[in-house]
């Protein structure tokens, strides 16, 4: 399939001009302010600035038009070609079989014009074969381009079928629940910490006297102030986490057409991503701490790119009932559909899990004991605190032990573990790139071992790990996961 060279949507001119202006503004804002500060606000200065701005806008618009005229793209001869450049001409050719995905993004400006940005992503070539980006295409043209590029590998039979079938859509209610339970509170907290620096500077605006009086009014007790402050910050962080989720995942839609999954999401910036089903290496069902009690989970996939270890770890669906996860997989990635009963770890592993969990706390205890020979009362408080920490730590160890498990059958390895969230990972045997059995002297004494299997994913691979399963089971399992075992079974 080939086509003649096509131009971008005319909105590209404006988008390009806007980008140029944005660059100029950031370059001129400091000298401009300096100029204003030195000469004051008289009419002549203002007129000068206005004139400058008009000339700049006109230049940017002309440049935008020229670069729009110079930019064409086409699909021909088994390759995607992009020509660009007003003065220096640039032609980029990407062989279609090197195209990993054709993604569309709709930023706020693009949204305004009803166009999309199309990103042709390649992988494997690295720096020598960069991606191509088309800043503005009409939706229909973008769809046509995607079909041309992706269709090259497929039979062009399903032209004009109903299009992708929607597998699942995130409801508004679920969107809010996803935000509220996202557990990104930590991230939001650190953001707040950064902002608090800014607030500190803002705080200088109010006189200290005023602040103190306000605090004396509402809370004479300093402990109450601290508590209120912590609560307020916590609430703010939570709201930020919800807002972040809404921005990223609003209107999340997972659909499928043929061998491709399509993900659409985003509130202000609409993102569309393509995942070739054949490139999925592993599926993860993640039950966050706040979600598990409600039987909710999110689905992630690890997928490999073209050729070498490039690929992505993507959210396949942000929130769904745990029992629906398997049903969704049946439609989205049938190869990964399995929900076996897992082998638990041997009872002797519990001791090691609890031990591992309380060791950091014991270190804290040692530090407290060393630091406090001077103040007896302080030491007593310290020990109380440590004692209060040891119990939750032990409980956490027990939880991790209870939730760990594995299963292998039907060529699928399933591994469950908990860091904070309980994560079930599913990977087919033929996707495993390597397996390790790891043993520390302690494990050897308890006849336990850790196994680790790696699959390809973005940035060097993802792993499936079971800590402290029986040594014999570990060795049997690694053997079974190898290529030799399969031959024997035949």
């Amino acid at each position: 399939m080939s086509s003649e060279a096509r131009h971008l949507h005319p909105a590209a001119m404006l988008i390009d001009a806007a980008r140029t202006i944005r660059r100029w503004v950031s370059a001129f804002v400091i000298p401009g302010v300096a100029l204003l500060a030195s000469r004051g606000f008289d009419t002549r200065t203002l007129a000068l600035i206005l004139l400058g701005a008009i000339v700049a806008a006109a230049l940017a618009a002309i440049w935008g038009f020229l670069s729009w005229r110079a930019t064409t793209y086409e699909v021909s001869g088994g390759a995607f070609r992009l020509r660009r450049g007003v003065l220096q001409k640039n032609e980029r050719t990407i062989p279609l079989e090197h195209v990993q995905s054709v993604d569309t993004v709709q930023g706020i400006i693009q949204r305004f014009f009803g166009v999309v940005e199309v990103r042709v992503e390649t992988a494997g070539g690295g720096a020598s074969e960069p991606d191509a980006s088309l800043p503005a295409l009409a939706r229909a043209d973008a769809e046509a381009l995607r079909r041309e590029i992706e269709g090259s590998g497929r039979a062009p039979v399903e032209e004009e079928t109903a299009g992708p079938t929607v597998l699942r859509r995130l409801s508004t209610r679920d969107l809010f629940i996803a935000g509220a339970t996202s557990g990104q509170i930590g991230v939001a907290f650190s953001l707040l910490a950064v902002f608090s620096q800014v607030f500190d500077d803002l705080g200088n605006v109010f006189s200290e006297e005023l602040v103190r009086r306000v605090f004396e009014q509402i809370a004479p007790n300093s402990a109450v102030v601290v508590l209120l402050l912590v609560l307020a910050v916590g609430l703010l962080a939570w709201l930020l986490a919800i807002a972040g989720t809404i921005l990223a995942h609003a209107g999340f839609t997972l659909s499928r057409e043929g061998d491709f999954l399509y993900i659409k999401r985003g509130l202000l910036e609409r993102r569309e991503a393509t995942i070739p089903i054949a490139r999925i290496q592993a599926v993860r069902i993640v039950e966050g701490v706040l979600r598990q009690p409600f039987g909710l989970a999110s689905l992630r996939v690890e997928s490999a790119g073209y050729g070498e270890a490039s690929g992505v770890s993507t959210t396949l669906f942000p929130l769904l009932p745990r029992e629906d996860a398997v049903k969704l997989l049946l439609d989205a990635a049938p190869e990964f559909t399995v929900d076996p009963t897992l082998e638990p770890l041997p009872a002797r592993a519990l001791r090691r899990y609890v031990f591992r969990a309380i060791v950091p706390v014991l270190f804290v205890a040692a530090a407290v004991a060393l630091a406090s020979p001077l103040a007896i009362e302080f030491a007593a408080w310290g020990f109380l605190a440590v004692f209060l920490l040891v119990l939750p730590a032990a409980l956490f160890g027990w939880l991790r032990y209870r939730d760990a498990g594995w299963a292998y059958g039907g060529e699928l390895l399933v591994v469950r573990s908990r860091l904070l969230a309980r994560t079930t990972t599913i990977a087919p045997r033929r996707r495993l790139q390597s397996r390790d059995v790891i043993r520390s002297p302690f494990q050897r004494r308890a006849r336990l071992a850790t196994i680790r299997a790696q699959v390809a994913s973005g940035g060097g691979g993802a792993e499936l790990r079971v800590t402290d399963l029986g040594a014999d089971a570990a060795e049997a399992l690694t053997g079974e996961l190898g290529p030799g075992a399969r031959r024997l079974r035949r």
Partner: protein
Amino acid sequence: MKAEPAERLDPRAKTLWRITGALGALPLLAVGGFISWSLLRVAPLPLGVLPSLAALVLFVVLAGVIPDLRWRRWRYEIRDEEVDLQRGIFWVSRTLVPLARIQHVDTQSGPLQRRFGLATVVFYTAAGANQIPELSAPVAAEVRDRISELTREQDEL
């Protein structure tokens, strides 16, 4: 699982590792010495000597003990279908990489390695690299060719 992998690294690896270990630990000695020197001006004798003593012990461990232990543990074997590696001093790990997953193989040798006539075989899967370090150069070349040949023989599965 099968018995330990059969092959060992070249014995010259121990010498090489002792040298690199010593070089790596030199800054440690310097730091320990410096702390002692500054402590000795204000503190009583035994306390002042402690940092350099600790640094010395670490130096001996890094340059003298670890290379030996590491060499004794390191084993490898290239089987018909998998590469089998065993390594690690405290955490002993046994790695199995199916030949069918290996994308390409390199041999590498740094200046110091070349001086000892040693080379490292590095093989890549889609999930990252694995290596067999410090083989004598001809053995490394042989291992590299063997892996690449066997990799080609594997049918796609």
